[in-house]
């Protein structure tokens, strides 16, 4: 491949330097930028905005930190719930219902009448007769 001579290299380097200098701002332009009105106010506004962002970031960080601390407690609660669920699934389900429970669960049957009449000497037929008679009396009125 063609290799440029050292003179050519110097020329190219000098051209490169001129291009670099040409791309720079002049002293007047630099001064104009430095003296731009409200520049300090804009810097103060940028500082305030940056401060706000940092504070918000700190808020989120603290929230994450609190959440991180809550993780063990939440894990413990989850474990307890899981243990209770497993235990209740395998625990014996046969339980002794009390007479009151039966009365609530079952509909009124002969057992109820017997319970009501347990303390008297009347038979079931006597009771039915009384009921029929009352009804008869009511209908007759």
């Amino acid at each position, binding site marked *: 491949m063609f290799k440029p001579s050292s003179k050519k290299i110097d020329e190219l380097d000098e*051209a490169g330097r001129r291009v670099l200098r*040409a791309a*720079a701002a*002049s002293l007047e332009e*630099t001064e104009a*930028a430095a003296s731009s009105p409200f*520049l300090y106010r804009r810097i103060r506004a940028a500082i305030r905005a940056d401060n706000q962002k940092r504070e918000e970031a700190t808020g989120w960080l603290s929230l994450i930190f609190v959440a991180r601390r809550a993780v063990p407690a939440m894990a413990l609660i989850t474990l307890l719930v899981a243990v209770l669920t497993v235990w209740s699934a395998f625990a014996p389900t046969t339980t002794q219902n009390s007479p009151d429970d039966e009365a609530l669960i079952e509909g009124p049957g002969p057992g109820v009448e017997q319970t009501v009449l347990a303390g008297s000497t009347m038979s079931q037929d006597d009771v039915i007769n009384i009921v029929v008679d009352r009804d008869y009396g009511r209908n007759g009125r």
Partner: protein
Amino acid sequence: MDSFAEPTDDVLVAAAVAGDEGAFEQLFERHRRQVARTGGRFFAQREQIEEIIQDSFTKAYFALHTYHGTHPASFKAWLTQIAVNCCYDQLRRMRRRPEQGLGDVEESEAHEFAAQLRSPPKDVETELVSRDLAVKLLARLSADDRLVLTLLDVEGFSVAEIADVTNWSISKVKVRAHRARAHLRRIMQRYL
């Protein structure tokens, strides 16, 4: 009289860190031209230079507590380092958004540019044209290449100073400068 003497940068920094906004404003007034000059080495548009000034002072404000000056020029050097880094960030952003840079050099511009290189521009109008072309050509360099060449050839920094400002090693600066120059030579070769 001592009571009327201007406070040093280090005194102002200490006051600004303590929350004195006036002290920071004094630092800004004292050094804004220096920061603008650094920005102006890399960017020609006024808005871009203003952005560099704004970014540099905003970053400096939040980093003031890390500044530990040892001699009177320390703050200036510290601030220049921040400004150069802001310019580097801006160059990288421009590389990521090529639509802002500028497109390719057209045939007519190439001829014009070659003529300009052979006969230096004398009037302001020609100078502006050559700047436009220069910006287009330099957009082909990477941010690293542009940084190191501008600091060497325009700012006049030594390799050691560049290493100091960029936090690169001296050998990295040398290698980067060598490659950047070769790259710029290849670009220039098309026009000379």
